[in-house]
């Protein structure tokens, strides 16, 4: 049996900020969900099912918060699913929502991902000691810095690449009204001179901690074809997982990432990603992950990702714009970060990305990862309906 076509009909985002003290969790989710419904020209009553995603419950201190949020999300009397796959969850949640349409189970699905990090403290929520398990000391940076060092050594990359990525993303963020960080005075020197946090990762080469939610309305073929606005057709979805700790795995370019992207390229008929993909939103929580993921995703040969960054190819006006929204480096409500990547690709191929629109974006890759670089979720969306 073939998959049913599925398209993004509406996208909604909140303003991302360190502390959204003006709204409760319910208010935050409704802000994104209502904007997605408005974009889709639908009301709550049109929605068949709701799929919620967020990272660990300890980030807000509420067990399964979707239960108390069911009301705010208009889910009363409807099916409600809650996905949790670590940092990749925003992407996985979108993929699960898409699968409900692709399976022919539902016609219109509302999917929302969020994190309200100001309710708690994510770094310490990640640092709870667990018997017999390797501790993650003081947050994610300490865990990922050795992977970055290994990349720099292996690829013989110069020190300034991480600064270039941070500068690009923070500059792009100035064109995105929803972005958390709007650093009007961002400069190469300011990033270079910022405090070294987890050598070689500087303070300004690190994502912020944000409150925020992102929502999408996904629709079936008949729903998409009735839409007055342009839609983003889902051309491919995939998820792949590998263990946290395995001696033979490559933490710099994980096999699960390579397998996941190979699967979305296969589904979308992509054989030369650098030429065929018009733009990508990639999960880059520390700036050095851009060149690392460019290689893992097949946009550059092994050891060549940093050269692509240095050439300016990933700038907004480059051959392969990466994170024109400003990316995770500029807004990071963890559980939503993956869905923001996916939603931004949808906005781009719909031509609705505003000031950070990539000219002629027709096929785009959304990417999310999580855990110890072990959970991957990706999709490819396009302006044209896929040819079966």
């Amino acid at each position, binding site marked *: 049996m073939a998959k049913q076509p599925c398209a993004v009909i509406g996208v909604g985002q909140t303003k991302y900020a360190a502390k959204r003290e003006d709204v409760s969790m319910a208010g935050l989710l409704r802000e994104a969900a209502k904007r997605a419904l408005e974009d889709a020209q639908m009301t709550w009553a049109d929605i068949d099912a709701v799929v919620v995603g967020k990272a660990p419950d300890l980030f807000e201190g*509420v067990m399964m918060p979707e239960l*108390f949020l069911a009301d705010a999300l208009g889910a009363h009397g409807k099916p409600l699913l809650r996905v949790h796959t*670590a940092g990749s969850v925003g992407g996985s949640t979108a993929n699960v929502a898409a699968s409900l349409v692709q399976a022919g189970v539902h016609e219109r699905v509302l999917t929302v991902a969020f994190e309200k990090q100001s309710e708690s403290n994510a770094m310490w929520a990640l640092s*709870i000691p667990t018997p017999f398990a390797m501790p993650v000391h003081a947050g994610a940076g300490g865990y990922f810095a050795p992977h970055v060092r290994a990349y720099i050594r292996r690829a013989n990359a110069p020190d300034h690449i991480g600064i270039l990525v941070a500068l690009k993303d923070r500059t792009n963020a100035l064109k995105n009204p929803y972005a958390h960080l709007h650093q009007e005075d961002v400069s190469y020197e300011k990033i270079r001179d910022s405090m070294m946090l987890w050598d070689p990762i500087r303070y300004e080469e690190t994502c912020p901690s944000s409150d925020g939610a992102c929502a999408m309305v996904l629709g079936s073929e008949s729903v998409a074809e009735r839409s007055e606005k342009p839609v983003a057709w889902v051309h491919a979805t995939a998820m792949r997982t590998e263990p946290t700790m395995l001696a033979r795995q490559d933490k710099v370019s994980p*096999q699960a990432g390579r397998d996941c992207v190979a699967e979305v390229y296969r589904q979308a008929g992509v054989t030369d990603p650098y030429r065929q993909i018009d733009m990508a939103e990639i999960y880059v929580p520390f700036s050095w992950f851009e060149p690392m993921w460019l290689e893992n995703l097949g946009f550059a040969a092994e050891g060549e990702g940093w050269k692509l960054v240095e050439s300016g190819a990933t700038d907004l006006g480059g051959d392969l714009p990466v994170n024109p929204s400003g990316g995770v480096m500029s807004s990071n409500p963890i559980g939503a970060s993956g869905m923001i990547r996916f939603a931004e690709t949808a906005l781009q191929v719909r031509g609705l990305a505003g000031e950070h629109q990539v000219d002629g974006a027709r096929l785009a890759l959304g990417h999310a990862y999580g855990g110890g670089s072990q959970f991957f979720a990706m999709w490819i969306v396009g302006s044209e309906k896929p040819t079966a």
Partner: protein
Amino acid sequence: MRDVAVVSFAQWRNEREHQGSPNGIEMLVPTMTEAVEASGIPRKEIGFWCSGSSDYIAGRAFSFVMAVDAIGAWPPINESHVEMDAAWALYEAWVKIQTGEVDSACVYGFGKSSAGELRRVMTLQLDPYYVAPLGPDSVSLAALQARAGIDAGKWSERDMADVAARALSAGAKNENAVRRTERTVDELLGLDYVASPLRKYDCPPITDGASVMVLAAGDLARDVCSRPAWIRAFEHRVDTQNIGMLDLTISNSAAKAAAAAGVTDDRLDVAELHAPFSHQELILREAMGIGDGTEVTPSGGALVANPMFSGGLSRIGEAARRIHDGTADRTMGHATSGPCLQQNLVCVLEGE
């Protein structure tokens, strides 16, 4: 829709209540080996993996990550996780197979509720601004629900004890139960209240556990299983959690899920209900229109073993087992989640 069937099921066998040392993963690994071997599908050929568990039960972030290490995710696997009872992971896996992307899936749930104080942990499921700070625990909320039914004249404490006594006598015959001693209704009514009107056996036992199920589509299911349990309907619904707005003596979400699944129209041989509190079985029977011709929860259900986050999947597993062994032709497994039956799932199974 594609024909998809449960081809194998296994559950962790508890020695007794509060059994101590095994953690979630230690319970999961042998249970998974049993289910996967029984499925006849080589582990490396399983198309999709999906689990249900809770970080708050484990007391840490990303508790499912250790499970991924334990199942041997190498080469990398196609995998997902819900922060829900694994019955909803089963739903996600069923949807995945419906897309045509994969033909088989392994679904698992696990939880070690004895590691914390469950009724207080569950309080954290409530609205964090207006309700949770007041501290109502899961047993007290169920007691309010039971009291509402008594006040409305819908059931009595004796009706509740009838349910509990029947569950205990079923548990006495179920090697997976942690409560295995029969008691009469009068004995039960002679016990002290835990939270009035609930007595000890109106409430579920604290249970550690894990369960694992393998699904397969079409001919693959027929190849590996002599009598596959075909999923004929699969529906779930949620209600608002705003308890003050609800008539607690009924369950709209259970009624809607059952109606959508066609349960109300057709005769079922067996209905395995996930009713953690005795009166909730009465609510569910009414909501779903389950008649007297149906054998209700022959395993004893949640009143004799209630492993959190795998208990719902185990109900579907018990319903599938009755198809597998040929003692039933049409069965239903039900799962619930949230306070006072907030969320309900129905899975209808049939033999060929």
